[in-house]
């Protein structure tokens, strides 16, 4: 015989009605998966919006004045590059293009793409996660890299396939993996020179200059020097530009707000479902709580029973939800919208689930607090 410590009483109260336990756990699983998917989408979207910036390896970005985010770059004279390179503290600098263009599939269908032009001889701004071909292949005229995720969208099947970008020949020289675009327009990586043609940018123009500093240089010093030497431009750190782009897409457009609202909705649904089922379980055991009170149990003892029921529901629900979420996350990696579930978020979700379930138990605690132990004398 085991002595019924509080946790065992809580557990037995829960498993006594298996259908209700199933409903509670299902509610927790549903809520947690919904929150994970929405937060994971938010995280995925956020990461995607600034992917080019975060992987650029640049310390500073030079843009035309008041460019709010990466897709809104405005061309400026590429002659500024020589001034940048002459500025003390600058180790490398390169011209960089990100601009929308039109991709024509073999079946004639037009697809919007974002042409990304970089200097293949420089480490800055090159594509990452290259799984087929070599980055320097873009030195050849018309060669481009696209991501595997967008093969179907762009009608690409293999290296060597030839298409048109704004009426100019484009040959697929390789593939990247997992480089998503937040917009519906996939990135097409190519050399800066090719990009000027594909994006119809004048020969003496660039959209950005990516700057890598000397290791010993101070960021503020270099930045001020660049602003002093080059007119009509902004010089932004990679972190700042990344944040500006994220904030624009996530909050200015409202896309992120919608996703976050769905996450909050998931939380509300979870709280309501769990509150209802734990309340129903409490009502079922009200007489027993009354008996415990009559026997001298303090309110604290009863709270612990109820809260432990909530925590047990939370742990079981969380465990199952993480299994479901893992499959959802895995599935999303093959699609255009990645759902991310980093470890800190998974740990945070455990805390949130426990808070959600214990919060839901407060209604029941309130009921038990007001319980009149004299009820035990009613047959």
């Amino acid at each position, binding site marked *: *015989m*085991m*002595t*019924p*410590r*509080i946790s*065992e*009483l809580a557990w*037995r*109260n829960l*498993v*006594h009605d298996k259908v209700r336990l199933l409903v509670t756990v299902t509610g927790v699983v549903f809520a947690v998966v919904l929150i994970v998917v929405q937060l994971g989408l938010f995280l995925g979207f956020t990461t995607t919006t600034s992917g080019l910036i975060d992987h650029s390896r640049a310390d500073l970005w030079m843009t035309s004045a008041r460019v709010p985010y990466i897709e809104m770059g405005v061309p400026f004279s590429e002659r500024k590059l020589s001034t940048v390179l002459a500025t003390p503290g600058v180790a490398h600098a390169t011209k960089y293009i990100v601009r929308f263009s039109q991709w024509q599939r073999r079946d004639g269908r037009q697809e919007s793409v974002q042409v990304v032009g970089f200097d293949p001889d420089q480490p800055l701004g090159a594509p990452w996660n290259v799984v087929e071909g070599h980055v320097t292949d873009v030195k050849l005229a018309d060669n481009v890299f696209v991501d595997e995720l967008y093969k179907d969208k762009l009608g690409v099947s293999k290296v060597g396939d030839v298409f048109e970008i704004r009426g100019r020949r484009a040959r697929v020289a390789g593939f990247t993996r997992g480089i998503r675009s937040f917009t519906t327009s996939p990135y097409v990586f190519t050399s800066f020179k090719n990009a000027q043609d594909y994006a119809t940018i004048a020969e003496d123009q660039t959209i950005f200059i990516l700057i890598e500093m000397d290791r010993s240089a101070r960021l503020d010093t270099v930045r001020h020097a660049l602003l002093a030497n080059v007119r009509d431009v902004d010089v932004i750190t990679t972190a700042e530009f990344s944040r500006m782009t994220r904030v624009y897409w996530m909050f200015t457009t409202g896309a992120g707000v919608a996703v976050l609202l769905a996450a909050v909705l998931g939380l509300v649904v979870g709280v309501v479902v769990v509150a209802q089922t734990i309340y129903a379980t409490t009502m079922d055991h009200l*007489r*027993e709580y*009354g*008996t*415990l*009170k*009559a*026997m*001298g*149990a*303090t309110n604290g*003892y009863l709270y612990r029973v109820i809260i432990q029921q909530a925590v047990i529901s939370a742990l079981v629900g969380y465990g199952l939800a993480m299994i479901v979420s893992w499959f959802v996350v895995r599935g999303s990696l093959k699609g255009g919208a990645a759902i991310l579930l980093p470890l800190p978020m998974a740990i945070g979700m455990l805390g949130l689930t426990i808070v959600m379930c214990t919060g839901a138990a407060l209604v029941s605690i309130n009921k038990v607090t007001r319980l009149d*132990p*004299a009820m*035990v*004398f009613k*047959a």
Partner: protein
Amino acid sequence: MNPIIEAHELTKTYAQGEAAMRALDEVTLDVRQGDVMLLVGPSGSGKTTLLSILGCILRPTSGTLRIMGEDVSRMNERDLPAVRRERIGFVFQAFNLFPTLTAGQNVALALDLKGVSARLARERAASLLEQVGLRDKLDAYPADLSGGQKQRVAIARALAGDPPVILADEPTAALDSQSGRAVMQVLKKLARERGRAIVIVTHGNRMLGYGDRTVRLEDGRIVADERTAVLEGAIA
């Protein structure tokens, strides 16, 4: 022998619309160690109200209640659970056992409330069930026990904290006469052998012979308080 329970002019009124209903009207009584006191009276006479007040579950509107010499009617609400835990054991008409716990666990739960270690609680629960003749039902669930067995488990639970006072609310009402007699024998034996003060609310007359004393309530007042002849044969 000093009384364990001393009630002095206990009055309980309930608001009923604009009027006040007096459920208990200046009840004065005491219960001594080893006493089995039967509380009888018609429905609505105030028996359960008096039992609730004696059990520190309900507060009197006026009057004083002393348990083991301490005035519990003036105690802070937060201190009353400890009084119930340490000094009072309850036996209910509907047994009020926890259906999800075994007989042994039901008894041990009362000890868990007192903070007794799991090992000690296990041993004591087994011993108490043995005392009420249910040693072999230690791991049985309430659903697998007869009404009489359930009530004996409830008595073992009431005894778990070793309280000087046992309050029983119609403990035989849900039992057949044979089981009812068995339960009353157990309670009577407890009072005699272990010096408990036992107050039993009963509705009918069939258990009257088991009490040392019968207090009759009507309309919230004590109308009779008399020593009764004990059925010696039933106590053996």
